[in-house]
């Protein structure tokens, strides 16, 4: 092959370009620390790196979610601990109230302290974390509970016209109570034959008119409905002890939430008197217009995603803590802390559980049903705490698995797209040597021509 000057020059220039582009590529790798600068450098690495980055981003978000949930759970646990302390104190107080040496005065002091505890419990249930009420369910910006001060006034008057009867009217103004519209009125009459008649006026959902009778042993139950919201239930129990004189009780709840109880009976009270009790009552902080929905909101749990497709409910609702029995969610359900606390203070006042009448068994109730109730309530809180603890543990597990996952992903990403510094440094050194060699040899080949040797 004939070799010409242009060939040498072209060769030199091409090789120089190749060397320089190689050096530029290596230099780019050195300065960015990445194998690829743009996807076309290596589509496989690029696709892998994009996928890993997306996974890492998602994983980081799950990590944030887990941390947030953990914080929430820890706050819940602290609050439940406080709740437990309050309830335990109440139980201690109840036990001490059983002390035979305690009189009305001591019980009043106990009642005062319990009133304080009720406020404390409400405060605990209103714990706020990160702008949300921890026990508020999905209704995170409103307090789930509140306390109301109830003033119970009992007035006993002597009926002079029919000396056999007296009327006791007790009005309970319950600030936290749910108003009922329309006004309902219940009348319960127990006569001297042992027959109990319950008449419901203004039944919320009127049943169809008719009469049904059922007999079970000595008990005959007759239900008469007139279709217009009046329902009379008569229970005739031939074995029941007859009551003499006849007792009739009417409870009216009006649209302001005020309950008025009127009792008519043979005077057991011979003198007229007025007694006023002041109780602190735990109540749900819900509006009167959207009660059912708002109770539902409190009952709802918050949900978050802790890894792909895995969602967990991470809150405890106020209803979970309050309804210690039956797991019922309605405010009036039996076995709820709200009623229990009310019953305790009423019993301490020497009244019946609902505070409608004086009750001679009140003191005994304190150490029986009330004590059982409060123990159940404490057990319920313990159960909730163990659930929360389990969740907290599972969050710790989720967190560590998330972090391991993240580490793995990051390691794989690093292996995929990061350079091996020593390798690239060596390659660069080699490229540099080749470049210098090409410059040196070319400068020697290109320079001389025949002219240099001619005179």
């Amino acid at each position, binding site marked *: 092959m004939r070799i010409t000057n242009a060939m040498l020059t072209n060769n030199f220039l091409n090789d120089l370009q190749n060397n320089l582009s190689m050096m530029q590529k290596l230099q780019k790798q050195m300065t960015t620390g990445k194998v690829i600068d743009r996807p076309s450098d290596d589509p496989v690495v690029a696709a892998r790196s994009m996928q890993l*980055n997306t996974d890492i981003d998602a994983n980081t978000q799950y990590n944030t979610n887990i941390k947030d949930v953990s914080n929430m759970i820890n706050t819940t646990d602290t609050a439940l601990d406080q709740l437990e302390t309050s309830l335990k104190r109440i139980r201690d107080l109840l036990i001490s109230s059983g002390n035979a040496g305690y009189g009305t005065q001591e019980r009043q002091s106990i009642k005062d302290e319990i009133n304080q505890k009720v406020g404390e419990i409400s405060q605990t249930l209103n714990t706020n974390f990160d702008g949300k009420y921890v026990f508020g369910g*999905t209704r995170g910006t409103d307090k789930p509970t509140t306390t109301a001060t109830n003033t119970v006034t009992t007035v006993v008057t002597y009926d002079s016209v029919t000396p056999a009867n007296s009327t006791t009217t007790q009005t309970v103004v319950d600030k936290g109570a749910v108003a009922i519209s329309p006004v309902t009125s219940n009348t319960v009459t127990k006569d001297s034959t042992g027959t109990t008649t319950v008449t419901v006026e203004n039944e919320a959902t009127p049943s169809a008119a008719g009469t049904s009778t059922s007999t079970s042993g000595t008990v005959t139950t007759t239900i008469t409905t007139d279709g217009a919201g009046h329902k009379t239930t008569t229970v005739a129990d031939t074995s029941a002890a007859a009551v003499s004189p006849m007792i009739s009780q009417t409870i009216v709840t009006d649209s302001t939430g005020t309950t008025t109880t009127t009792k008519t009976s043979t005077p057991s009270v011979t003198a007229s008197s007025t007694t006023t009790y002041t109780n602190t009552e735990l109540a749900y902080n819900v509006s009167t217009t959207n009660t059912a929905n708002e109770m539902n909101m409190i009952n709802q749990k*918050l949900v978050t995603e802790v890894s792909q497709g895995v969602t967990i409910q991470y809150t405890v609702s106020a209803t979970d803590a309050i309804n210690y029995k039956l797991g019922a969610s309605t405010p009036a359900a039996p076995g709820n802390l709200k009623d229990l606390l009310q019953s305790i203070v009423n019993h301490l006042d020497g009244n019946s559980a609902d505070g409608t009448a004086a009750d001679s068994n009140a003191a005994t109730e304190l150490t029986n049903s009330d004590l059982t109730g409060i123990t159940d309530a404490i057990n319920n809180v313990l159960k909730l705490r163990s659930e929360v603890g389990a969740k907290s543990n599972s969050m710790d597990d989720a967190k560590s698995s998330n972090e391991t996952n993240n580490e793995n992903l990051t390691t794989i990403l690093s292996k995929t797209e990061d350079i091996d510094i020593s390798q690239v440094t060596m390659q660069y050194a080699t490229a540099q040597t080749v470049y210098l060699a090409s410059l040196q040899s070319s400068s020697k080949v290109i320079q001389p021509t025949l002219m240099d040797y001619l005179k």
Partner: protein
Amino acid sequence: MAGLFGTLNIATSGLSAQQKAIDVTSHNIANANTEGYSRQRVTLESNSPYTMPSITNPSEAQVGTGVSVTSIQRIRDSFLDYQIRTETSTKGTYDKRDSYLSEVENIMNGTSDTGLSTLMSKFYSAWQDLSKNAQNSDARTVVAEQSSALADELNHTYSQLQKLKTDCQSDVKDQVFEVNDTLDQIDKLNQQIKNVKISGNEPNDLMDKRDLLLDKLSSQFNINIDKKDFDGVDVSPVNSTGVKYPNIVQSLDNESVKRFSYVSSITETVKGSGIYAVNYYKKGDMSNSNNMQTVYVSMTADQEKQLDENRVLWADKDGNAIGLSVDEASSPISGGKVATDPLSFNSIKLFNPDNGQIKGTTSVQADIDNYTDQLNKIAKALAFSVNAVASGQTSVGTAAATTPTGAMDATNQADYMPFFVNSDTASTLYTTDSTGKASLSNTDLNTVLAAESQITAGNISVNKEIMTDVMKIKTRTHDDEFATETDNNVDGNSDGNRALAIAQLANSKINIQNISDTTTRADFFAAAGVDTGWVADSNGINTVQSSSDGMTVTSYFKDTIDKLAVQEQQAQRIVTNQTTLLQSFTQSKASVSGVSIDEEMANLIQYQHVYQANAKVISTVDTLLDVVVNGLKK
């Protein structure tokens, strides 16, 4: 016997021949670095001998009469030229593809920390955070802003791609102009070469120039070269489908050749009519508006796309498009002057070379269109899935005249608060109150909802109502039953189940590939359309069901980037290969035709010595003549 003067003449012929050879050597040395130059060689030949007729001595040897230069030849291998031109065309294709695809790669910004992929991750993360803090206006603002950033990035990428396509087209225009100019130059040289050749000389340097121009032309598209008499050539593109006489340079009758024109714009006269006004500039020369011609052509959308991506037309010598303005015989065509009398698409003669820069530039437009289309699909999939989950509506519905305040019933079901909207339609319809909150009337809302099917990457945007009042984002379990978020009295304000469902769309596999530019939200969920499943999740929120054939929005984007990367890598690889191949051909060419200084120096010395020897002969003859003139008679 010719005598001493004859000898003197022989020496003189030697002198002038060597001088000519030195001239050629000097010409070679002078052009050692000239592009396209082929070294030249003198061909020396001894002159016809002087025959001395003699009756007495017929066998006496003939005496030579010296030397003369018969021709000066250029040393060139035409097969190498052919190989170089073929490979140059291929390299031209991929040079252009490489340069434009690397631009597309820059625009798509796939692997960077600030690209679409990252923004999509952030978008879903923002929804995750919102699901935990739905009551929090900060979290809502972050969602609105992140979504807006994602929409903006889509808009930006879209407009960059559109701009790149425009750049491509203007590149095609420049190429057309340059090709026509090159063809004129080749034609001129072709005629000059013939004239020189006819007059009996070798037009070496002109042929070098013509070869150089043909090399340049071959980088634009691949060409056939037919050699004709007197070193003239006929040139035609390799692919000349549909054109009867495709010569673009002709040795004989050099006026009846073809040129190329450039289509500057294609606009539909009435939307949906299928009749387009096609504007083209004669020979790609846009410097003068007189060069613009308008022809009406009836086309389908696909044909319009084909023309839009190609844009180069066969034309006659003056640039009148064949089939549109003139026929092959250069007689004007009657149709196509008015919109009511359109020509058919088949009459358009598109210039569609197999290889070369024109091919590279036009083919890359189809790729840009393709990537734009994929971005549009991403935008639509995002808009439809997020809007559907946010509103619980699998079709946009029709908003009632007055927005229902309670739970929606069967008669007024609609998406009253779409999250993503088509900004082309929506941006002008908002009214802003004194507090800066934007709102849409229900009539305008219906217009906006109807325009949802035309959402593209270029116009996707977050509903301005939501941007100006982030509390309107629907995050709660039962928000789907109410027209607006504020009417929902069933769920608490930290309920983020709906936001969580939207965040989980990050992992929903959707049949994105089935989305077309006419797909509506109803089609998106219809079995006959995109066939996206619609089921309740673990929290009771109706949401998109993953399809086994589908892919997530982020992975679809990744696939797009992946495909782009492979295409670009292929272009780069072919460019590298072709460059190496061309280098070896160029080396071969340099080996054959290149000037070697050493060789020329050796020749120079050779010629110099012969010249000196001839001079010595003259001086000897001079001495002899001196003897004859002055020495014989004293």
